[in-house]
């Protein structure tokens, strides 16, 4: 029983933290229709930057803001490559990601005086700030506090993003992803809007990196591996599972998608699969999400779950 509850808390905690990444990829992949691979580089950028800054005594909450800004700057480069140099989205992402490998490594070595990992276990983070002490240590301890803090950050980000998407500017972003010519016909440069969307998306990715690094108490280059797959899987799971729930917002869908992804991952691990297989499991969950999200599978799904009465009607028609 205790193991089960612990697992649930772990799923909630990690699912919420990675939901920040999923929201970022929701902007780029779902709204802007831009498969952005650069998050594999901007996620660890946020983590590494946070590690270095916390070691040097910067306020951990301020680190979140700085990480977001740094992610935006990196996203701007991806956007400029695509818009000004006309390089296709996938290649922009690969170039950015490869370049960021060096940037992150240099950053971490510079900040720690030559080490390849930034550890700050003894320093204060957002997870033991005064806000976290709202939850007494006797109830659930450090883990529950982490869930609490992650939840607050996710909710604040979700509300801000929802509000933004309803503004004139946000609506223009959605229009650009939907029909680029429409934006042009409105007399607006669709390239500028695209760059803005990529900035936001990568800002969220770096923010997720910052939060997760603070939870781990350390940051390194390796943290970015598999982030694209994780983020996209969350977005696709969330949107395909909840597509029919009309009142639900896209942001809510991807947050839940992220939690479902973590749950699926945790279930596989609980079955006793050795950790060496972690990345294969992630890839397979992504594959399954894509199949479930595909139109063919959905049609089949609807057919299977139609009531027998309706099915008879179908037969009559054919």
């Amino acid at each position, binding site marked *: 029983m205790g193991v089960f509850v612990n697992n649930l808390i772990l799923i909630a905690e990690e699912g919420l933290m990675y939901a920040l990444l999923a929201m970022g990829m929701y902007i780029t992949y779902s709204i802007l229709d831009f498969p952005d691979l650069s998050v594999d580089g901007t996620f660890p950028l946020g983590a590494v930057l946070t590690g270095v800054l916390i070691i040097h005594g910067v306020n951990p909450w301020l680190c979140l803001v700085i990480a977001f800004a740094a992610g935006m700057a990196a996203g701007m480069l991806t956007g400029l490559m695509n818009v000004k140099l006309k390089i296709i989205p996938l290649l922009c992402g690969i170039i950015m990601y490869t370049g960021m490998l060096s940037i992150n490594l240099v950053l971490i070595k510079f900040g720690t005086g030559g080490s390849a990992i930034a550890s700050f276990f003894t320093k204060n983070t957002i997870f033991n700030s005064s806000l976290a002490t709202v939850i007494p240590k006797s109830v659930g301890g450090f883990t529950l506090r982490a869930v609490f803090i992650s939840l607050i950050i996710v909710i604040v980000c979700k509300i801000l993003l929802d509000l933004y998407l*309803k*503004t004139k500017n946000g*609506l223009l972003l*959605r*229009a650009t992803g939907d029909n680029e010519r429409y934006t042009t016909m*409105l007399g607006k440069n669709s390239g500028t809007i695209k760059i803005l969307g990529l900035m936001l998306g990568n800002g969220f990715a770096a923010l997720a990196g910052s939060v997760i690094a603070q939870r781990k108490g350390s940051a390194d280059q390796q943290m970015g591996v598999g982030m694209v797959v994780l983020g996209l899987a969350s977005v696709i799971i969330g949107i395909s599972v909840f597509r029919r729930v009309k009142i639900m917002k896209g942001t809510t869908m991807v947050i839940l998608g992220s939690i479902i992804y973590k749950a699926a991952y945790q279930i596989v691990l609980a079955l006793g699969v050795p950790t060496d297989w972690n990345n294969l499991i992630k890839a397979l969950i992504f594959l399954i999400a894509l199949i479930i999200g595909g139109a063919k599978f959905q049609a089949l799904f609807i057919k299977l779950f139609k009531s027998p009465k309706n099915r008879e009607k179908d037969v009559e028609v054919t």
Partner: protein
Amino acid sequence: MFNKGTVDENRLFLNFNLSIDDHEFISVIGSNGSGKTTLLNLICGTMRPDIGTVMFGGENITSMPEFKRARRIGRVLQDPKMGTCPNLTILENLALAENKNRKFNFARAVNKHHEERFRTMLENCGMGLENRMGVLAGSLSGGQRQALALIIATMTDIDLLILDEHTAALDPKSSEILMQITQKVVSEKKLTTLMVTHNLRYAVEYGSRLVMMHSGEAVMDIRGEEKKQLCVEDILDKFNKISIESGN
């Protein structure tokens, strides 16, 4: 100039000159490949000419990017999917269009105030869209979408309306209705209009001037009283003659 430097090099508009007066409604006809769409693309900036200039209201806009020209030009395209955002509601589409040439800042995009105004606008076009403002534009029929696209293109003050075979993808009845709406909007707002069409009857019935194009030249340019007396047979004759000359 297409396929420059290859055996397929094709030069259009070598000696072409078209000037459009204010409040004119020009219908442009011509066979495939005669340069109708290229002409529109040159005006809108989707394409740049290799030589020559495009003047707009006394200003040389030859090197102005498309999105800047769009601030003074409204355009309805042939493909109904292109004139609206399919995943935004009718209301959201209209709210964006109304904000054209203004700042896209962080103010709320849609409010009650808008709804009232858009409702009357949609009622005027008589497509029954006024009660479906919360519906996604992508779920509308082709005719409804083109009517919406026309409203969007003419919502703000524009100096030129471009209709790029905007009825071509529709069934006869829908295109008939759309042409009536077009006529109404154009005359109400006194818009200068350039309409490309394959429908000779529309070209004869609507508009104050008719231009027939053939391999990048205007082979026929009729306006005023002469245009009013024109009938479909006259144009068809001319059309056939050209076709025989060019061996089609």
